[in-house]
């Protein structure tokens, strides 16, 4: 039995009453005068944002600095953008990512003897104005599929519609608000390996083991087109970005095991081009915002094609084994087209295209130039970062560190971080600008299959063979939420573009949605 404390004596009680009844002097609790330093704010490209200002060290919290930068940029209070700061240690190349509680102490620790007279550079990175809460509970478990779920994607319009492709030869659309099935897309005669919503959210493309691609109307659930032409399994499909749509029709590209990719005109079902040249199965295909198609193949090469003419532009040969996945820095904006967090949608076709284009260009601009980057993951345990616009076929960086095959990649929507998931049970975070290693996220006990960023780039969700989903805080590289609940391997996961919902599916045949 625990020892009982004796009751407080009368003197102790009196002293306590006196302490609570009298006004405390708060002056010594406030920070003493620490002195002040000169601060220079730059943006992530290194351009100076405002004049050098002198700030009291006692006031240098991240929130204060963020307000200060907004004020210096003469923004209205409504337009304030939250900023994150990275500290360039004066006199060295060192950059500290995490803003400390005690800035002065940090500077002194790094050997800055007189921080009051040196100018300290802070690079300000704008954060998204909205914040996505980490999903914490299983909102719905929806059964319906008769076989494992192989792919899932949320509609770009809202998080209320989720499409999944399964081994039972159907794709299904689910209403995530109510947790009920919405449509069953029947027609394929083989497993549905991939689903993709068109960027305007009015069509769904599915590709299947039966060598065909089908187009569906998500509202009525009717098949509006079946595209035949591939000689082997159709493994992946990608839509043309919305701002590139011409002649009043969308196009899409499908990749197949037969080593070809085909560009289809959606309205007519005509094959516009056949992109042949790969010697092995094409595992991944992406349609970039500059009207270029990227294909990664088991023949160890990545090829970039001109989508309009169907000609080969570049062949990237650096990987030593199969290419597993390609991620574009513009993936998120291309997928969502003209939808964004403000929810105002232009009324005219031109307005929509202009907005989609403007969003794309804003997202991929580096140093004032539009440069769409892409990263490739391979079985040779490495990742390459490429910038075809500026660097041609030379890689920007080779990202080493994974100890097994790398399966999946994701760029954060704000293009600052690249996440990679691998068979070594780890997820790694890299700086998307220069490919520097940032963090390793450990926690899964089996290969990590897929990863997806939240819309505000602050959270990452990973799905694994160990039957769990895990939500990670990107900034601190800590586990935010562990989400057990699946009964078997989780093959597919997606975070809704508006951040409200995470959808996942796997070998246990039930779709699960996760909410905050």
């Amino acid at each position, binding site marked *: 039995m625990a020892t009982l404390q004796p009751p407080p004596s009368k003197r102790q009680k009196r002293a306590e009453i006196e302490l609570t009844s009298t006004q405390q002097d708060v002056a010594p609790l406030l920070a003493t005068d620490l002195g002040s330093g000169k601060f220079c704010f730059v943006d992530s490209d290194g351009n100076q944002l405002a004049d050098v200002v002198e700030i009291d060290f006692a006031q240098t919290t991240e929130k204060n600095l963020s307000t200060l930068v907004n004020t210096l940029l003469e923004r209205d209070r409504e337009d304030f953008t939250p900023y994150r700061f990275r500290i360039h240690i004066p006199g060295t190349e060192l950059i500290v990512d995490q803003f400390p509680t005690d800035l002065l102490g940090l500077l002194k620790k790094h050997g800055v003897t007189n921080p009051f007279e040196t100018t300290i550079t802070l690079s300000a990175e704008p954060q998204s104005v909205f914040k996505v809460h980490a999903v914490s509970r299983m909102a719905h478990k929806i059964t319906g599929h008769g076989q494992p779920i192989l792919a899932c994607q949320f509609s770009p319009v809202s998080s209320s519609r989720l499409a999944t492709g399964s081994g039972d030869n159907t794709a299904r659309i689910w209403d995530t608000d109510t947790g009920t099935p919405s449509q069953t897309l029947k027609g394929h005669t083989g497993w549905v390996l991939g689903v993709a919503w068109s960027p305007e959210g009015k069509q769904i493309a599915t590709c299947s083991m039966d060598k065909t691609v089908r187009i569906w109307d998500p509202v009525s659930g009717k098949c509006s087109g079946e595209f035949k032409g591939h000689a082997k399994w159709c493994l992946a499909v990608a839509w043309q970005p919305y701002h590139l749509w011409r002649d009043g029709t969308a196009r899409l590209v499908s990749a197949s095991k037969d080593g070809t990719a085909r560009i289809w005109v959606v309205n007519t079902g005509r094959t516009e081009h056949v992109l042949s040249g790969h010697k092995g199965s094409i*595992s991944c295909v992406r349609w970039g915002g500059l009207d270029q198609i990227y294909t990664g193949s088991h023949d160890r090469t990545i090829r970039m094609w001109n989508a309009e003419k169907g000609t080969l532009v570049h062949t990237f040969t650096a990987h030593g084994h199969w290419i597993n996945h390609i991620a574009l820095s513009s993936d998120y904006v291309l997928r969502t087209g003209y939808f964004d967090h403000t929810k105002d949608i232009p009324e005219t076709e031109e307005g929509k295209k202009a907005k989609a284009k403007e969003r794309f260009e804003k997202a991929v601009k580096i140093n004032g130039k539009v440069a769409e980057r892409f990263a490739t993951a391979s079985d040779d345990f490495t990742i390459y970062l490429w910038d075809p616009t500026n660097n041609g076929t030379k890689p920007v960086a080779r990202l080493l560190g994974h100890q097994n095959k790398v399966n999946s990649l994701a760029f954060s929507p704000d293009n600052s971080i690249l996440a990679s998931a691998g068979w070594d049970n780890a997820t790694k975070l890299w700086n998307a600008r220069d490919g520097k290693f940032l963090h390793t996220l450990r926690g*899964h006990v089996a290969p990590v299959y897929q990863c997806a960023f939240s819309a505000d780039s602050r959270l990452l969700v990973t799905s694994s063979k160990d*039957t769990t989903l895990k939500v990670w805080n990107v900034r601190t590289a800590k586990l935010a939420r562990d989400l057990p609940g699946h009964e*078997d391997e989780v*093959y597919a996961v997606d975070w809704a573009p508006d951040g409200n919902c995470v959808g996942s599916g796997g070998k246990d045949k039930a779709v699960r949605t996760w909410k905050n």
Partner: protein
Amino acid sequence: MPQNEYIERHRKLHGKRLDHEERTRKKAAREGHKASENAQNLRGLRAKLYAKERHHQKIQMRKQIKQHEERNVKGAAAEKDPSEPIPAYLLDRANPTSAKALSSQIKSKRAEKAARFSVPIPKVKGISEEELFKVVKTGKKTHKKGWKRVVTKPTFVGPDFTRRPVKYERFIRPMGLRYKKANVTHPTLNVTVQLPILGVKKNPSNPLYTQLGVLTKGTIIEVNVSDLGMVTASGKIAWGRYAQITNNPENDGCLNAVLLV
């Protein structure tokens, strides 16, 4: 005996015998006959040694043949559709499915209530206390008291067990009948691995036998499956898992069990 390679030296100087090729061919041709003769006629220790050597050779041979066969069929098998649906990024991979433990089929079966408590061997013959325990009659005092027993069946005794003083020890579990490991079969994967025993969960005959750790047919034991890479529902690596003993260990001298999944 010469200590260096005199035959090689001789061959360098004078060349091989004229009939060397023929002799080696004939020798190789007679190898089977020779082996057969040895196998039939050797006696005693030599026969034992010979049999052992031949046994190893045959194992190696089978392994090699199997490897060749696997290599030959690989091309054809890759073209075949995989049996269970898997996502595009897992296609064309030689998936190590053997380590995969909890198949969804078994999981759904367990969800049904009737199957939840079913075990591979539902009924076992009870073992009476007379059969299991032998009364110790040695020594003057024990003889008089007559309460000391020896367990006559195999037992599992934990790693940190120390025997009690002679005066208080009621049940003696003989060292020779103690087991630490069991050959555990995974029912769906049809693989058998030897796993360390963690404890005896239930001996259906008698709760006392469970306490003593008696291993008889039908006993549920807990085995250490951390090597198999199974995961629990919450995504952690499963450590212990139950298995049921399928043989009569006292007859066989080994412990065979089937994993309950």
